[in-house]
């Protein structure tokens, strides 16, 4: 059983008929993802990418048995789409939409409480389980099945580190993008928990950046669990100017709060190996795994 999704996972896409969604879901189908339907209000009854389109998530779930949904809806209505999916009982919800208003995400978080849904994102590249399934917009060319679980706040750096771990002869069990927004679904700590429970994952890479407390929370969890699996981390943004938002809405350092240095310190203290440079993450993981075997 892989992390979060397998090749049997039945997936619908909210916003399927849009231009970007059409392109990326087409790539997902080619990768082997079980895309079983789409939701676009007002376009129910049509077919798109050779799957049925429904007006609502409830109808789509009833007709297709989907348990996962990929939200490809513009920022203004992304939160409503997520809430609709939560109310319809979707188990795995992945939102790739960038620039969702923060207070909308708080509304989504309120709805997630007590629900059966696990949210990945927003502003996430999604989930990739190499050789099994792809729920998201990442490139798959450098990915290959292997023992490393990657959890990341950055899509571009994930592509980079996927390539590094493949070049290091390792490969990935899964990659999860927690997203670059300040308020999001699953956290780096949640991903650590998932990867520790996953027998296919032998080592974990955490890709962090300035801002927020995701890395500190992951460090606290790791310190508490004292895991058997090696964990390598990189935290970028050490040389970013203070008080400026660096690309991601969530990447902002102010004083000691959210600084790369403090995050690395917390992780190191929890027993995590900090990669010395951004280009050496794959190699560092290989060394860490060799030490454990």
């Amino acid at each position, binding site marked *: 059983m892989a992390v979060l999704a397998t090749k049997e996972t039945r997936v619908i896409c909210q916003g399927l008929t849009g231009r970007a969604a059409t392109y990326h879901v087409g790539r997902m189908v080619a990768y082997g993802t079980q895309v079983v339907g789409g939701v676009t209000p007002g376009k129910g009854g049509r077919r798109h990418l050779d799957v049925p389109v429904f007006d609502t998530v409830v109808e789509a779930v009833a007709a297709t048995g989907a348990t996962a949904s990929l939200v490809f809806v513009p920022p203004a209505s992304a939160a409503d789409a997520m809430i609709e999916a939560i109310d319809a009982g979707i188990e795995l919800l992945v939102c790739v939409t960038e620039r969702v208003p923060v207070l909308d995400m708080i509304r989504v978080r309120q709805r997630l409480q007590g629900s059966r849904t696990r949210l990945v994102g927003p502003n996430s590249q999604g989930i990739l389980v190499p050789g099994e399934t792809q729920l998201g917009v990442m490139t798959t060319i450098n990915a290959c099945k292997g023992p490393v679980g990657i959890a990341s706040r950055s*899509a571009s750096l994930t592509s980079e580190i996927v*390539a590094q771990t493949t070049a290091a002869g390792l490969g990935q069990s899964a990659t999860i993008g927690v997203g670059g927004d300040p308020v999001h679904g699953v956290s780096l700590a949640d991903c650590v928990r998932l990867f520790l429970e996953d027998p296919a994952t032998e080592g974990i890479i955490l890709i962090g*950046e300035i801002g927020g407390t995701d890395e500190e929370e992951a460090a606290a969890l790791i310190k508490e669990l004292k895991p058997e699996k090696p964990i390598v981390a990189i935290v970028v943004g*050490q040389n970013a100017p203070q008080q400026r938002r660096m690309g991601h809405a969530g990447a902002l350092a102010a004083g000691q709060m959210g600084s790369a240095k403090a995050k690395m310190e917390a992780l190191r203290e929890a027993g995590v190996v900090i990669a010395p440079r951004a280009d050496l993450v794959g190699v560092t993981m290989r060394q860490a795994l060799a030490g454990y075997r």
Partner: protein
Amino acid sequence: MNLHEFQAKELLTRFGIMIPRGRLAASGAEAASVARRLNVREFVVKAQIQAGERAAGGGIRFATSPDEVGTIAADIIGRRLMTNQTGPAGEEVRWVYIEEAVPVVRSFYCAAVVDRSRGQLILVTRDRDDERSAGCGDGTVLPLEIVGSTARGDFDRAASPFGFEPVQRSLFAKRLSQIAEAAVSLDAILVEISPLALTPSGDFVALDAKVTIDDHALFRHPDIAALQDVNEGEDNDSVMLAADRHQINYLKLDGDIGVVVNGAGLALATLDLLHQAGGRAANFMDIRTTATSLDIAYAFGLIATNPQVRSVLVNVHGGGMQRCDTIADGIGIAFRRFGCSVPIVVRLAGNNAEFAATRLKSYGVSVVETADMWQAVNTAVQLATLKAA
């Protein structure tokens, strides 16, 4: 997006929050005439810059006559005001806000703010005069629930530790609910009132206000978006705003290596790598997934025309949404438009990397190509050093 004090206060009155009587002025003479019309015994003259701790920098001063208001305003306007929050360059004061000075019995810090780790909106309340003592010196933190366009919370409980009489307590709780409602209605990630003053007549009045609106929600608030003050403020740099319209997150820095990167994480990593290699970036750049080749050409133009730049580092890892060839096309277009007098080091990986290298050649862009990221970074640093020598 940060608002000026006078903008924030005006917005807050929509929710019933009381503010002192006041008006904006852009010159000493105007300030004096504003003060005359206010017709009160004591005035406050407040510099309008988007940074806190203005009082310590001389940006908030009291006056007892309209003439004195005029003199102070004339002194402040046009100056660069430096506070603990502005950095050494300070910020230019273009306006002052003239207000009636309000007598204060007690003063409080109240803020509705997004708590990102809990994924909640919270309301923080503290007695400003009681900071070091135990108990309510730490203040109360009230989690809020967003319901429609307002926020629900136990405001009475949040108002209870301060030892108010029942009438005052319910008035204070009402102010707290108004602050929470303002945050939700305005899509604010911060509504901070400090001080919220208890006056001798028993009212709670907002003496200062700081409001930060979520940039990603401005589409719902065209009236607030129109306030965007292009010339100043940390989020309001005009080059940055123009780049933003081209789907590029751009920030000018003080080094000499221009960087072209896709994605915020890789961009931050590139700054760190440059630093580790002994170089300094001339800019931060994150090409968003939505940028077209023409957008990228615009961004490359910013680097090609920056006289500070001695070498350019292109570090691109093509993803599913932003492929290498789109970025190569952008660089090619800019190269033909502006030329580029400094060496360009290119490292392309991921989606369509090889095709992108071919595209660059067909545009006639001469580049130093390296497959390795660390080597590319070092080459860019060396070339910049050579150019400087």
